[in-house]
């Protein structure tokens, strides 16, 4: 497991933190990370600005045109991409180890010196708007958007990072440049490099590209308002005509990633809707009732709070039946403790699957991002088994009760309503 013995963590004077973990078993590198520019900084009428900015970074930089960037990248078989979420804009790239200097140059140019050429911004906007038009027809996405809206009212977590057609349609190239100028700073940036490169060599390459980037001495802080758990049930349906399947999302708040509740909740979530063929809910909704191809749960834990969700795709005729079955499973889950066998199975699953999660440079890279992002400690994955094994069935029950109230669930669906 990655740990202090093989992770090198360095912070440059301008605030960029670099984590390296060499792996010479394959001549490739995976690079990932983020900086503190997210949709939380989007003005409400410009929702989608952070995302639009991230997706425009490779449309031309001071050193290279769009054509040159992709000519270099695709010729060497490498890939690089940018994305934005609520708190951060993130990036990832994959290349042969020998091409790392070029990749870092492309990354540095995209993060520091993007040009946002007008003709390209028009193209990206049309692509984003088409994506949003397709989203409006996606029953799973629309049920999920509505769920977030109801669970996080007046909060950045309740608004889609990719915005709405009206907001994205109004964003101009100058606004992208302004967003970039205001929020793309080295302070708080994290860069993770995993693969066939020694840590010292990686640090030298990173310093060469980024050390002269000046930090923002007075960064604005963006605090999200507190989120209160729903105190009554809510039900909402988005009608999308012509759909064969209706998608369903239901649930409640979940713990923040940094909360001590996280691991007990994650184990409980595994029992409720993941373990084996989608846990208890998969067993009842798919295996026994044959109502859905998929019916499972997810725990989404972010900086301040999270969500605990059940999702399923069902025939419109079976929608209410599926909702009732799921509510009764959630009720059972908060009324009685899970069995010792169920808990021990999930504990064993969490520990046993770690080698598979860490087999590739990509898996390790994403784990290191989590360590840094949520301040988990470099020894997190080495201590992981202990943390998992100390959870009791009472811990799972008490944690579930803190978050899942069967009488105050948010239930959303999208598609045709019978």
């Amino acid at each position, binding site marked *: 497991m990655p740990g202090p013995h093989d992770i090198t963590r360095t912070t440059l004077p301008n605030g960029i933190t670099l984590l390296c973990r060499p792996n010479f078993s394959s001549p*490739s590198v995976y690079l990932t990370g983020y900086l503190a520019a997210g949709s939380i900084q989007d003005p409400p009428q410009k929702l989608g600005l952070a995302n639009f900015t991230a997706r425009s970074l490779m449309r031309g930089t001071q050193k290279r045109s769009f054509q040159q960037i992709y000519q270099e990248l*695709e010729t060497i*078989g*490498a890939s690089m991409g940018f994305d934005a979420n609520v708190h951060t804009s993130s990036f990832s790239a994959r290349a042969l180890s020998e091409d790392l200097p070029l990749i870092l140059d492309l990354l540095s140019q995209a993060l520091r010196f993007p040009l946002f050429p007008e003709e390209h911004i028009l193209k990206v906007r049309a692509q984003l708007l*088409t994506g949003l038009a397709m989203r409006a027809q996606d029953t799973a996405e629309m049920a999920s958007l509505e769920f977030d809206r109801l669970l996080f009212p007046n909060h950045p977590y309740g608004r889609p990072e990719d915005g709405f057609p009206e907001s994205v349609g109004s964003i101009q190239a100058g606004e992208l440049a302004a967003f970039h100028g205001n929020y793309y700073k080295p302070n708080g940036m994290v860069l993770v490099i995993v693969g066939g490169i020694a840590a010292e060599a990686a640090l030298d390459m990173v310093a060469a590209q980024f050390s002269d980037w000046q930090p923002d001495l007075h960064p604005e802080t963006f605090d999200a308002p507190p989120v209160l758990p729903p105190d009554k049930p809510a039900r909402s349906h988005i009608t999308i005509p012509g759909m064969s399947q209706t998608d369903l999302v239901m649930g409640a708040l979940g713990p923040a990633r940094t909360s001590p509740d996280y691991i007990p909740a994650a184990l409980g979530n595994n029992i409720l809707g993941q373990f084996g*063929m989608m846990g208890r809910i998969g067993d009842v909704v798919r295996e026994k009732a*044959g109502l859905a*191809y998929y019916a499972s749960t997810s725990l989404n834990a972010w900086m301040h709070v999270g969500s605990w969700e059940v999702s399923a795709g069902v025939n419109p005729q079976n929608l209410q039946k599926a909702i009732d079955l799921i509510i009764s499973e959630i009720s059972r889950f908060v009324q009685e403790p899970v069995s010792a066998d169920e808990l021990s199975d999930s504990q064993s699953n969490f520990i046993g699957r770690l080698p*598979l999660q860490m087999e590739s440079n*990509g898996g390790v890279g994403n784990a290191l991002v989590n360590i840094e992002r949520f301040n988990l400690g470099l020894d997190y994955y080495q201590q992981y088994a202990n943390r998992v094994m100390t959870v009791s069935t009472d811990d799972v029950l008490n944690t579930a009760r803190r978050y899942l109230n069967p009488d105050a669930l948010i239930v959303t669906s999208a598609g045709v309503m019978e």
Partner: protein
Amino acid sequence: MGWCWLGIIILLMNNSFSQHQLSNGLLVHLKEIHTAPLVSHWVWYRVGSRNEVPGKTGISHWVEHMQFKGTPAYPSGVLDKAISRYGGVWNAFTYLDWTAYFETMPADHIHLAMELEASRMHESLFDPLEVESERTVILSEREGNENIPIFRLDEAVQRAAFDSHPYQHEVIGETADLHSISRDDLYQHYRTYYSPANAVLCMAGDFQTDEMLKTLEQLYAGISVKPASPGTASQEGIIPDRRRVEVNGPGETAFVRLAYRAPQADHPDFFAFTILDSLLAGPSSLNLFGGGGISNKTSRLYQAVVEREFAVGVSGSLQPTIDPYLYEITATVHPKRTSEEVLAAVDQELERIRQDLIIPDEVARAAKQARAQFVFGSENITNQAFWLGYAEMFAHYDWFEQYVDRLSAVTPEEVLRVAQIWLQPDHRVEGIYIPENGGQSL
């Protein structure tokens, strides 16, 4: 090596890779990789939608679902828990020519996957109650697909592209057939196609080859030998004329799909066609389980239709198959353009590639991209095991081993000839998805 006993034929030994055949006909491909304490185990069967008859479409995929519903030794609900308990992952896929099952597990628990696969090769239960429960699950899976415009377009194009070959049906099957297929139909399909001689077993990971072979011989020795099932389909050549299908459906976004007949995987033109696809629509990879892909922004079609704002995205698809299948180009129409404008822009670019020789550097670039993709994909043990069996389903393992070399050997003249033979504008299906709320006029 100290292991060589009656009943196992060693077909090939090559460093860490070896090929064997058990006396009941089961092909075994093993590759030792000791970088992580993991093993990925696959069983491939030579059965897919290609082996289906009218009225029974979707039966191969449904059999695959029933393979998760228990055997006498491993009743329904027991195995999924056992695999999860040890941190393993498992899944299965049904495609045109094949059905495959895999488990990737911590190495010290891989015996569980081995025992399971041996058991469900010959003694799955097909409990009638489970069959009925799974009928609605599969109908639900199909309904989920139908929500996606590209699925609807795909289904119409595929149907129009074949006169009689079973490839004309979606793998998931026709809704009417999913209502009428019976438990006996499913069981008969299973008994016909699931046998050692119709399967290939592959393992990659942290094990000792001789030890694994002994275990496999013990597990499979008792499974009776049946003759391999013959292929049933007669091949179809170039699409005889220009065909047009239009699909109306919800949404605001239009899609265009062009489908040409493509050579089968063991056809001499296949690798030149792979280069052609890479130049037109960007490189594809055989990394199904991590390792990423390469963007296609410098490809000819991206430049011609996306950069010039006829479309917001374009892709190409060439599948290695037993019989000639399809080469498909799909474009998402730009909100300010019509499908006809996209078709014209694609055609202009295809005309160019049918006229002019490409430069040798373009072939070298495509080969380098393929090589890089294999490096990235090889970090995942599941990819490594997948590669061991995949090519056996439509050609032979050599097809995979020689993949990059054969790409490198393609000449510009071959690419030109392949474009001229296979991409003829009067021999294709043109599929258009017309969105009900779209602003475009056709």
